[in-house]
């Protein structure tokens, strides 16, 4: 016992020192948060992708409608229309940005981890006269807007992070948990074991 404690302290110190080295490196090599640079990089990377046909036009149209205070709810899914009706403040925020000057495609993808799962979404940078917003849009099969969201390019506030963290419904949460657990913590070990043949 007498020898074990100093040995444990010494080893813990070494672990902490090694951690300190990693932290120092991550501190040095992590670039500062430059939203406009990240957006420009995304836009450059998205040049090889094609946006969902009609998504940019639908986005321009709905932004115009929101800014005029007359969103066409008939061309949205019921869930989105209900959500938009409940957020008059958000509509006023969009209106305050002024007219749209330019739209840039930032890339698309699906919301699910599994192939074929989730919804096809497109991200756009929209430059207004008074600033810039990042928009996410997804169209339904009949061309109506199924999902629509926007955010500023500023880093999230603590309140936004706290509100957003647990905002999923119970069903979505359960599915995400099962998906995550199955893929990352079961599929990856099996891949490592039987494909990469990792052994001690």
């Amino acid at each position, binding site marked *: 016992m007498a020898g074990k404690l100093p040995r444990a302290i010494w080893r813990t110190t070494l672990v902490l020192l090694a951690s300190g080295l990693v932290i120092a490196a991550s501190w040095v090599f992590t670039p500062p948060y430059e939203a406009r640079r990240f957006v420009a990089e995304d836009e450059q990377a998205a040049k090889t992708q094609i946006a969902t046909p009609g998504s940019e036009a639908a986005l321009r149209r709905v932004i115009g409608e929101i800014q005029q205070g007359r969103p066409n709810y008939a061309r949205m899914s019921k869930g989105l229309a209900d959500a938009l009706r409940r957020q008059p403040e958000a509509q006023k925020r969009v209106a305050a940005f002024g007219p749209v000057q330019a739209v840039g495609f930032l890339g698309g993808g699906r919301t699910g981890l599994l192939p074929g799962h989730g919804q096809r979404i497109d991200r756009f940078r929209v430059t207004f006269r008074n600033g810039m917003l990042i928009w996410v849009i997804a169209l339904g099969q009949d061309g109506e807007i199924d999902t629509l969201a926007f955010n500023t390019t500023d880093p999230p506030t603590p309140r936004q992070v706290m509100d957003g963290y647990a905002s999923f419904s119970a069903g979505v949460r359960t599915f995400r948990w099962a998906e995550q657990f199955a893929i*990352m913590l079961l599929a*990856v070990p099996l891949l490592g074991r039987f494909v990469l043949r990792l052994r*001690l």
Partner: protein
Amino acid sequence: MKRTRFLLILDTILFVSLAVLIEPRTSLTVHEWLGLTFIPLVVVHLLFAWQWIATTLARLGARGAWRLRINAVLNLALFVTFVVSAFSGVMTSFIVLPGLGIMSANFGRWTLLHNEWTVYFEVIAGLHVAMNWNWIVGAVRRHVLARPSARGDAAIEAIAGKDA
């Protein structure tokens, strides 16, 4: 064998904690407290694996020890991704650290890092499980099912070394 039993419990806690840290997102408070608790548990895990670390470092230059080198690189990557994930998580703490009077800063930058590196950490943790599969099976057979196997016990011995 008490050591193996303890490690099996500790590693099970770590494994389940990692899964819960990532999903389901029930509460940021739970996520932050569990994340902070995770850090000392990993340090204890490292202390118990010290003999393997020391032996591996000593044998890295040995001829034909490529599997050992792969494992060493994998474990080093796991350590680095864990430290970056944990540190960036601490730097973006919105509840626990501010509650202790420590304010986070530059969380735009650290949040990006945290979200990215936790994925790396998770994937490499999965490969770490794969690497230690024989030990896990051996420990479960011996301590949970009470049906020890020669191969499982050999894996336990290989990791325990003379520290056991």
